[in-house]
């Protein structure tokens, strides 16, 4: 039986299960902590740092840090919120994100976070990185301009033997997502769609699916990201 523990999040007394990650425990208490690289049910990596919280005075990633009895967590203080906004701005300026023509617009988690954090003009210079579009795979397109290197595809999309179909290629600032052509040879349409949907941005696209969701019916058209969690608290 899971052991219940008590912790404080932004001064609110919450209940969680021992060993549960902060981000999940917060969600169970109807409190939203933003994430990008995290995928529920898959081992977290703490890669994007967007879920940063202050635990007992120290910055930690909420997706990789388990809650413990009496833990005091700060999530919504001004400096932490600004740190998250800065991370979003960094991602926008480091890649080439043209939301107006992107088929993930409205379903994109990065875009949704930018709206939630009211990002206007980024404080950082645009890098205008030279990236490519790779479309030789029969079912998928990789648009490296949009990739935020969150590794969600590497961690989530596996073949029948549990081997990752995606992997990092190249090194340093040139690192990018690769598709294993052998392992992905027999990829089904469902797997291709799953790969596209696991991507938080529009870096992995299933071919010939673009813009099938009408405006108004896309994931974040009507409510900001995180509303599904926060709305439960209002009920």
């Amino acid at each position, binding site marked *: 039986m899971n052991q219940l523990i008590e912790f404080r999040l932004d001064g609110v007394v919450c209940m969680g299960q021992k060993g549960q990650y902060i981000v999940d425990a917060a969600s169970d208490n109807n409190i939203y902590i933003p994430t990008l690289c995290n995928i529920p049910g898959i081992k977290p990596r703490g890669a994007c740092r967007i879920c940063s919280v202050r635990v007992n005075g120290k910055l930690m990633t909420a997706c990789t840090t388990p809650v413990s009895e009496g833990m005091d967590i700060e999530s919504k203080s001004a400096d932490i919120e600004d740190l998250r906004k800065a991370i979003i701005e960094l991602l926008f300026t480091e890649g080439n994100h043209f939301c107006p*023509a992107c088929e993930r617009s409205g379903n994109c988690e990065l875009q949704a976070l930018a709206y939630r954090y009211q990002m206007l003009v980024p404080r950082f210079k645009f890098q205008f990185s030279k990236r490519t579009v790779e479309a030789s795979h029969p079912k998928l397109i990789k648009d490296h301009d949009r990739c935020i290197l969150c590794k969600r595809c590497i961690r989530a999309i596996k073949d029948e033997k549990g081997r990752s179909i995606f992997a990092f290629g190249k090194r340093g600032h040139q690192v990018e997502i690769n598709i294993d052509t052998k392992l992905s040879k027999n990829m089904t349409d469902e797997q291709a769609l799953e790969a596209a949907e696991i991507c938080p941005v529009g870096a992995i696209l299933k071919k010939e699916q673009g813009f*099938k969701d009408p*405006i108004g019916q896309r994931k974040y058209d009507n409510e900001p990201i995180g509303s599904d969690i926060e709305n439960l608290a209002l009920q």
Partner: protein
Amino acid sequence: MGQKLTIEPVTRVEGHGKVTIHLDDDNNVVQTRLHIVEFRGFERFIQGRPYWEAPVLVQRLCGICPVSHHLAAAKALDVIVGTGSEGLTPTGEKMRRLMHYGQMFQSHALHFFHLVSPDLLFGINARPEKRNVIEVAKEFKELAVQGVMMRKFGQEIIRATAGKKIHGTGAIPGGINKNLSIEERDFFVKGKDPLNIDKMIEWSQDALNLFKGYHKENRELVDTFAAFPSHHLSIVRKDGALDFYHGVLRAVDAKGDKILHDVDYQNYLDYIGEEVKNWSYMKFPFLKNLGTKNGWYRVGPLARLNTCDFIPSPLAQKEFEEFKAYTNGKPNNMSMHMHWARLIETLHAAEVMRDLLNDTDLQGRDLVTKGKKISEGVGVIEAPRGTLFHHYRIDKNDLISMCNLIVSTTNNNEPMNRAVRHVADAMISGQKSIKEGMLNAVEVAIRAYDPCLSCATHALGKMPLEISLYDKNENLLDLKTN
């Protein structure tokens, strides 16, 4: 000493351009040019993108009639995905038609009420501070409200079909991504006054009557101002009807003889060429069989009513008959009659919207069809300003490898230059002094074509137009801007 007049920027048009008029020592006009000074780029940076992105990306070259680009691109991609130009489901095609006719309605309303009405209501020679839509709103409040609400109605139609009033995503290769709900339909059919389709038809007739009244009182001006013979080109439905969405390419000469015989636009390159001149970013299209010198033609409302045989809606057809009777059934070559033609089209668009809104196919659920994919497709549509060509090629990986756009205003490049020359000859040549009203007359001629200079150069940027005056030695003497 000779002079060079420069009008920069030309105002109350979409886009940025300037006019130069060269005068000799006796102030006789020796040369006129409409320069389009914006930067182009869309044809290049769409290359390397997935083909299904084109309808959403390329429409960004305009904020006034993006629907035209959205649909022209989608039609080209229909061909590529094997649906063909006429293979859409009834819901797919009718939703797109509703989107397009909504756009024609709003764009024509914008042009007539916001851009042109100041010239008609206050006169070409009125003071510049008087010749604007704000003054129209002050003195003709009811008319201004009609203009705003008609545009709003069209924009709401676009929102309901494309998802957004500007830069929606409704049309996808092979069809559409949504149908029209009963609630959305009722908003337009049973909407509270004035936002319902019956009121829009009534107001379209009012606007038409306003122009006809102006014509009656200013017959000589309207009939002679920038009037010159030309060829006319548009798409028409296969049976010769006016059709903004789909058809075959037809061109007639100034006497009404067909010079392009209802050809399939997939082969447009066999019939149409584009000439480049070193003083403008806008190309000069021409009919290949007539060559660069004689092959130029007009597009837009006037051309459409000159090429089609009839209008398939009763009220507009009645107006069309009156319009045709005015020139004894022959092509109408009077630039100012462009406004007349545009308002007949506005009425037609309203009638078509009414019929479509009452069509239950719009509530259908079969939205997309696809067939065998090919690597190349052409989409042509009648945009508010005229015939619009989109041509794409894709590579084996589904990325766009070539894009060619011939935009409506580009087709009207030579006619607009001719119109400028006509007005300059008639109103400026030989005059002892150049008055502001004369320069506005040049703008009035350009404005009749409702040019969209941003679209025409596929540009990234700036809007307004300007006029300047140079001497024989190219010294700038005067500059008029807004």
